[in-house]
């Protein structure tokens, strides 16, 4: 441990040291000789009054790497004794104007001892000649050098005093009598395979010192004696075009070269490992890991797997109905939801390959007049809303001991986990680049102080982690009980029960209580917090900004969640004949609560609309008008009517003490639809009515791709719920009525 800490400390020190050590680079201040960029900060020397600067070189034709001496002559008088002269390769004010950026190497500067492009004379008195010696760049082309008197400042360099420059041609026009190279094989642009023969003929007046063979600018070989012939194995090069260069140097230091290209076209043997090898290797790893862990845990697993099979009571068989048999309608639903998932996959593929252009979303404002967010975001808010209630319900049952509602606790938890996953999926399918999602983790620390979207990510992550743990912990007791009674699931349950102890119940209850309490608090942070803040903090969109969003979203979330639980529980109760276990009074109680939440939401809506109508800025007023009387009225009023209707029905039946399960479930379904539409009326109208009055009203019509993806998320949600209830007990066995705890599994005691 101490070694590890020391290592980290050293690593941090090293990183810090690298950060502190100054790195080399062009200087800016025009003080003394050095490497100078186009500008020289504030310490430039003044212009050369009326004088001229000229430059000359013995030859403008150079071979690669040839040395050349440039003479710069300054004539005329200067306003001061200090004068700086510099050599640049560009007259643009960019950092790349130093000659080295163009490929030149300065081997000597006027001081005779340095290799700088800037030379400063401290006692300039008149005509002066300065000499730089440079080595030409290593690739062919035309390279211009300028000499100029140092002048300029800040980001606005001025080039008042400079020579027109010398344009050096590197490559062509070599020195007379220098070596000349002809490549006889391969031909320029030839396509080659396997072994390529490179054959070069070299003529030179002086004796050849050595010849270099370069492929892709990498020296492959050098030879000093004829024949200049090489066998090159092209398998070392990728298929495609490569550059080949043969350069000959004679004893006098002159050189000549030839550049050609060749195209490698080898038949590439598939060296990829076939898929079955991967599968076999993966399988082998799993088997070995299984055997090793089985050896380690032999005793424990033996005890767990060997427990004698026990019979289920009739009540238990009723509670476990979904695990014991599947009706044709169950298969039909499975296929239907599976088709929904398949539709999702197909349409998402379409969206990913074409871009979000296949949706109805467009940029707001001119000229597209669209809405940058659409029903994906609507779907996200809706699912997050449903996700709350589930776990809140279950948490409330635990924290304030609502024993009556216990039978539906696990259904509620299941609904939370599944809908939370779908909420996350809705966000991912809205993103232009879901492949870059990980960047939200990378830049998390940087962005969490200010981005509401990052707050969302945080709270949703915490929420889903806690929900899954909560669901799992509270299910362990049932899994332990069923392990010996459901032979089909024995292995799965045994694996999930890893580390199970008979006496763990008390501890688990304590952990679950604290998680429940945490979840109750987080609901206010998420549904009444970061989700509304996503909108309520955005001042740019009229209709969003404001403090009412928090309470409104919370009421909406709890309403739609309660409605979703009512529908789910009622469907399962009917499908699996759980009338005896899920008491009708549970639905009555939830229905009454739902009516209160819906009227609370309508109350907030009244506040919101009245504020927008009464004396608000015209941008707010316009949005309210669009909803109440304009293009969104055909959605707005039906939503209000649906909410009022369900409130009237639920509250009425509660007061009249006449309860109908079918009516309550229907009302809940209406609430679910109404709140989906209401979220649409929150997200879209603000975006199609830009705050800047010069933009015309926008248009947003979702496309079938969007509808398919939204329907797909619901299909996936149903599929996951079906999967769960076919694998795990969705009703609590040991807590249910009529099941004696005394008959519990005592084998391990």
């Amino acid at each position: 441990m101490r070694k590890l800490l020391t290592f980290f400390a050293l690593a941090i020190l090293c990183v810090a040291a690298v950060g502190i050590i100054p790195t080399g680079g062009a200087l800016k201040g025009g003080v003394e000789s050095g490497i100078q960029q186009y500008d020289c900060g504030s310490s430039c020397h003044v212009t050369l009054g009326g004088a001229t600067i000229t430059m000359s070189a013995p030859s403008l034709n150079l071979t690669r790497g040839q040395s050349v001496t440039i003479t710069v002559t300054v004539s005329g008088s200067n306003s001061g004794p200090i004068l700086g002269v510099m050599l640049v390769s560009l007259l643009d004010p960019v950092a790349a104007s130093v000659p080295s950026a163009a490929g030149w190497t300065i081997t000597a500067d006027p001081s005779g001892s340095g290799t700088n492009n800037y030379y400063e004379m401290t006692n300039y008195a008149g005509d002066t000649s300065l000499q730089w010696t440079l080595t030409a760049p290593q690739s062919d082309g035309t390279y211009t050098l300028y000499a100029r008197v140092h002048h300029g400042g800040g980001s606005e360099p001025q080039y008042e005093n400079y020579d027109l420059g010398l344009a050096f041609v590197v490559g062509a026009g070599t020195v007379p009598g220098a070596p000349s190279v002809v490549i006889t094989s391969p031909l320029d642009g030839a396509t080659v395979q396997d072994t390529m023969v490179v054959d070069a003929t070299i003529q030179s007046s002086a004796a050849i010192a050595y010849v270099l063979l370069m492929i892709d600018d990498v020296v492959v070989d050098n030879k000093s004696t004829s024949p200049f012939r090489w066998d090159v194995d092209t398998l070392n090069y990728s298929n495609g075009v490569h550059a080949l260069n043969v350069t000959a140097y004679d004893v006098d230091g002159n050189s000549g070269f030839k550049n050609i290209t060749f195209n490698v076209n080898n038949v590439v043997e598939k060296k990829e490992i076939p898929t079955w090898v991967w599968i076999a290797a993966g399988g082998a790893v799993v088997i070995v890991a299984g055997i090793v862990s089985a050896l380690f845990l032999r005793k424990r697993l033996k005890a767990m797997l060997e427990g004698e099979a026990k019979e289920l009571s009739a009540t238990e068989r009723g509670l476990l109905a979904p695990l014991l048999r599947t009706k044709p309608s169950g298969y039909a639903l499975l296929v239907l939801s599976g088709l929904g998932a398949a539709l999702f996959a197909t349409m998402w593929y379409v969206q990913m390959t074409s871009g979000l252009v296949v949706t109805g979303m467009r940029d707001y404002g001119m000229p597209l007049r669209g809405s940058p967010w659409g029903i994906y975001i609507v779907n996200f808010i809706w699912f997050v809303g449903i996700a709350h209630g589930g776990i809140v319900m279950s948490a409330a049952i635990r924290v304030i001991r609502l024993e009556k509602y216990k039978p539906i606790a696990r259904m509620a938890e299941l609904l939370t986990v599944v809908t939370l996953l779908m909420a996350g999926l809705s966000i991912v399918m809205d993103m232009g680049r879901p492949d870059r999602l990980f960047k939200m983790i990378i830049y998390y620390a940087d962005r969490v102080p200010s981005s509401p979207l990052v707050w969302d990510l945080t709270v949703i992550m915490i929420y889903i982690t806690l929900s899954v743990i909560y669901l799992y912990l509270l299910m362990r007791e049932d899994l332990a009980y069923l392990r010996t009674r459901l032979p089909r699931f024995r292995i799965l349950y045994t694996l999930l029960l890893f580390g199970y102890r008979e006496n763990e119940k008390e501890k688990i209850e304590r952990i679950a209580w604290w998680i429940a309490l945490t979840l109750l608090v987080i609901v206010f942070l998420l549904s009444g917090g970061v989700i509304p803040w996503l909108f309520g903090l955005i001042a740019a969109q009229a209709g969003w900004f404001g403090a009412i969003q928090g309470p409104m979203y919370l009421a909406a979330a709890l309403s739609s969640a309660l409605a979703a639980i009512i529908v789910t529980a009622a469907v399962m109760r009917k499908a699996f004949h759980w009338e005896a276990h899920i008491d009708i009074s549970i639905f009555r109680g939830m229905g009454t609560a739902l009516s209160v939440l819906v009227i609370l939401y309508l109350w907030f809506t009244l506040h919101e609309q009245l504020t927008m109508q009464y004396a608000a800025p015209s941008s707010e007023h316009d949005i309210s008008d669009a909803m109440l009387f304009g293009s969104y009225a055909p959605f707005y009023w039906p939503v209000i009517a649906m909410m009022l209707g369900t409130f009237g029905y639920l509250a009425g039946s509660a007061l009249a003490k006449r309860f109908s399960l079918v009516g309550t479930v229907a009302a809940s379904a209406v609430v679910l639809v109404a709140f989906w539409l209401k979220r649409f009326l929150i997200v879209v109208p603000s975006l199609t009515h830009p705050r800047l009055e010069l933009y015309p009203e926008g248009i947003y019509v979702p496309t079938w791709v969007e509808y398919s993806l939204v329907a797909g998320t619901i299909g996936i949600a149903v599929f996951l719920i079906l999967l769960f209830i076919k694998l795990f007990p969705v009703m609590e066995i040991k807590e249910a009525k009529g099941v004696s705890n005394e008959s519990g599994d005592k084998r391990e005691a």
Partner: protein
Amino acid sequence: MVRYAMAIDLTRCMGCRACVEACKVENNTPQGIFWMWVFRYEEGNYPNSKIRYMPRPCQHCDNAPCTKVCPVGARFKREDGLVLTDVNRCIGCRYCEVACPYGVNYFNWKKPWKNQYYDWGEEGLPYRNPDHEIEYEGRLVSGGNHFVGVMGKCTFCVHRLVKGLKPACVANCPVNVFSFGDLDDPNSEVSKAIADKNHFRLQVELGTEPKVYYLGAPLDPRVLRRPLDSTREEVNP
């Protein structure tokens, strides 16, 4: 340090949209995407109405709401005042667009290297501007043709500024509507323009501190303004 700003003289603008064209050519933005846009609107009621014009680049706010909400820091503000988008980092959530009160953000709804005004097919870009392939201050921020699914907007032509040139819209205006320069330099064009004339900025009440100044009388809240453009179908990407 430089603090870039722009002044737009509304009394001079004649609505020719040369700036819009210059921007599209310089930044090679795809169809339907207008980093520079000129509002054309009718002001007042008949018979006292008048056609007016207002160019709208990104406002390069000092307190930019788009940079605050970005979940990955792809939208950022540089020290010289430019608000830029790192297209290598953007995840395409469009939160910056939603948070911007000026509507200057344009998303790449599809592969941006096709379907310009004229469909160039699979051949690729009508032309390539290598300046857009360079990273400025270490981040890929310039030009409008990078990836599908990322955000883009006016950069004040960051690739021209490093060369000492002015943004394309400024350089191409035939009637000198724009002044551009360093706000900290009292002798810069923009500082002089602001000092000489009445000016206002858009939606300052939101505290965004925009760096685009409009010269002329502020928009009168008592007068009706009616946008004259509504050409969605023609430019749909």
